[in-house]
């Protein structure tokens, strides 16, 4: 019955728009609609367009191996890729990591070319062909057609490898009107199928936006101190080159006319912070991870 009392107490707060946390309705009205014009969304929603803008502004991004635009382009892209390895295939328009395929070492076998997957299986050329065709047919987004972006896999910094050895942890920095508001590190788990997606069971690690220190961590809303599967500590770790991460995030945010953004950054072992993508409607879970509401974080930002 305790939970019922708790919920009743929370219900009491329903009417007042509390400063403790920003809900979806308030995020949309006070942040997304306030700072982002709808017509500018495509600039970041399309990963190819966004990447082009970032490249032009000199923001470090992963190397592009190929962009596959249309069904007739699939064969050309396959030709390029058949000699490549360690690359990532992404639909230009998708969210939540849908349609992203990460391929490792190139292998040749009796039936032709293939690539190793992170789970140890092999991904054949034929599978890649179907996947590219599905992407350009818009199977992963809300559009009738799409482009496939194929880029070089990044090599995570050793400090990040400590968090999760077999995949990529990425950093999310919320930038509001040119100021960094909140930051977190997203660590995959086996349960999240190697994806750094918090809704699929990934771990969220709060990062102090001014120092780059990891402050706290949670998984599905429950506070933790160690990675539930590797047992590695998550808290009290200094992320390397943090000021550079913030600078890259701010620079990338300034390339688009959007005032409220989630910037996804990966720390590459050799090349430092690289921007993965920008998000015009970043989620609310970062508040739970940090224990700080967006409203509160906004007041901390020097105006």
């Amino acid at each position, binding site marked *: 019955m305790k939970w019922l009392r708790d919920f009743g107490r929370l219900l009491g707060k329903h009417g007042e728009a509390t400063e403790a946390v920003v809900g979806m*309705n308030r995020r949309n009205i006070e942040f997304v609609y306030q700072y982002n014009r709808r017509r500018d969304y495509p600039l970041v929603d399309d990963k190819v367009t966004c990447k082009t803008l970032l490249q032009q502004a000199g923001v470090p991004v992963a190397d592009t191996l190929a962009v596959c635009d249309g069904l007739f382009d699939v064969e050309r892209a396959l030709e390029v890729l058949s000699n490549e390895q360690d690359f990532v295939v992404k639909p230009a328009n998708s969210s939540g990591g849908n349609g992203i395929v990460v391929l490792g070492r190139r292998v040749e076998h009796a039936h032709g070319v293939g690539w190793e997957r992170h789970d140890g299986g092999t991904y054949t050329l034929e599978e890649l062909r179907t996947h590219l065709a599905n992407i350009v047919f818009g199977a992963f987004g809300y559009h009738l057609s799409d482009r496939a972006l194929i880029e070089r896999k990044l090599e995570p910094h050793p400090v990040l490898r400590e968090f999760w050895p077999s995949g990529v942890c990425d950093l999310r920095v919320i930038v509001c009107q040119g100021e960094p508001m909140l930051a977190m590190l997203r660590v995959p788990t086996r349960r999240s199928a190697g994806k750094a997606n918090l809704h699929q069971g990934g771990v969220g690690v709060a990062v102090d936006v001014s120092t780059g220190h990891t402050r706290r961590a949670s998984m599905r809303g429950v506070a933790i101190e160690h990675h539930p599967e590797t047992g590695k500590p998550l808290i009290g770790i200094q992320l390397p080159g943090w000021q550079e991460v913030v600078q890259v995030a701010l620079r990338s945010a300034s390339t688009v006319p959007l005032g409220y953004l989630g910037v996804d950054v990966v720390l590459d072992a050799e090349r430092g912070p690289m921007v993965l993508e920008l998000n015009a409607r970043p989620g609310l879970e970062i508040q739970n991870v940090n224990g700080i509401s967006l409203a509160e974080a906004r007041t901390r930002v020097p105006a």
Partner: protein
Amino acid sequence: MKSPLSYTNVVVTALLVAVPLALIGYKVGFLGYRLGDLLPRTEHRVAVKMKLDGDRGRVSARTFLPLSDERQQLTEHEQASDPSFRFVTETEGLNRTARWNGTSVPDAASMSLNYAVLVRAAEYSISDTLAVPDTYPESVARYLRPTEYVQVDDPEVQSQLRELGATSGPLVSRLRSIFDFTSGLRGRAFKGTTDAVTALRLGEASCNGKSRLFVALARGAGIPSRLVGGLILDDGTKRTTHQWVESYVGGHWVPFDPTNDHFAELPTNYLVLYRGDEAMFVHSSDVNFDYSYTISSRLVPAPRVVEGASAFNVWSLFERLGLPFSLLRTVLMLPIGALIVVLFRNVVGMPTFGTFLPALIAAAAGETGLFWGVVSIVIVVAAVVIARQGIQALRLLHSPTLAILLSVVVLTMLGMSLAAEQLGLSELARVSYFPIAVMAIASERFYLALVEQGSTSALKQMMGTLLVVLGCYAVMNSLALQALVGGFPEVLLLVVAANVYLGRWIGMRLLELWRFRSLLGQRVTA
């Protein structure tokens, strides 16, 4: 922090509220719209089934058809009977009879009479000062005289009258004392006829005994009174009919039911079938006659809404265009359904497939009923998910896959209709009324959620969708609301106003309170 309502928003909202309210006021004030007229009414369908053994002889049977008056309205009737019968309806005195005459009627010959009625409640107030008149016109005066079973002149009746003090004083007090006395008699489940004197002697009676005693006493008190026979319209099958009385008060025949304690009033479920001391059924002797009443009810739009000839009336517009009532219902209620979805999504935070899909499903379920509507959605979605898993092995491109799934939807619906017909589930058989697009979109959304967000999330969204469908269905199928929107389509502007308000509402969604409980909890303890 209050939501930042701009000047424009306030003006727009005010207009959206003021305009419909003004229009409603105009219609009610100047065009004579009455909300009571717009409310849906209960239509009772009565099936009278009769059977007799004719033994190849000449036989007849008669009962009554209800007459339309201010209180009750016969909207349709039909009869069906053994071909050896000839059916006639006639007006006989105050009543309308339904008679079957037959020659060479076989055994177990059946007759049935089906009719639909709309009945209102009636309530009369009788002035305390109203006196009992000395004379009545002849047409009424005959209801003062004694008859075989209403023995007004009987000494016991007369002495009871004196004991009650019902021979003097104002009309209403005489009626009240007679009513109290007769309704105070013990009840008795007695079949057959009880005359007034017998009821008085026994001190107990069924409805017809109490009613005859009431009539005898009232006539003795100088108040013209008569028996009324009819049916209490409660859903189900029964043989019991009912009798009550009417007394002539101030130029009106006012109803009294001493059995069920209705004084100068009649509830909505009383159907008058005849007036006078009649038998409900009369038939040739030795034919082993049997009968039953089966009563069912449903809500229908008020006749005033349907018939109204005003230019504002959407109902009559649709009728002129030859469009069906169900379509109108759907069209008018969709914006309201959408508002319900908005409430669920933005205020509760319920995850659903799409914004309008639940409203569309609820509208479609109007044809099949909620239960079977939900059952069919679940079956179709399951079929599509299974088919899609199978198709996955073929590695087809996206668009052809979708086209195949559409065929799966159609085939599943056909299969369901077929199976339902075999099983005699008529509601489920109507699943083909479901818009295929709605089914296909629901299935595809579920599949995408399943693949992209995992089974937990997909099931949550499915449950959320079904829950919102439930809410939409309850609201959209409310006949009161349908009638209201039918009579006052401008109500939809109020729906727009509500959406404008909700569109700037920045409160926490109910489910977010749970999601962010730790953050909110901090504040409570801090």
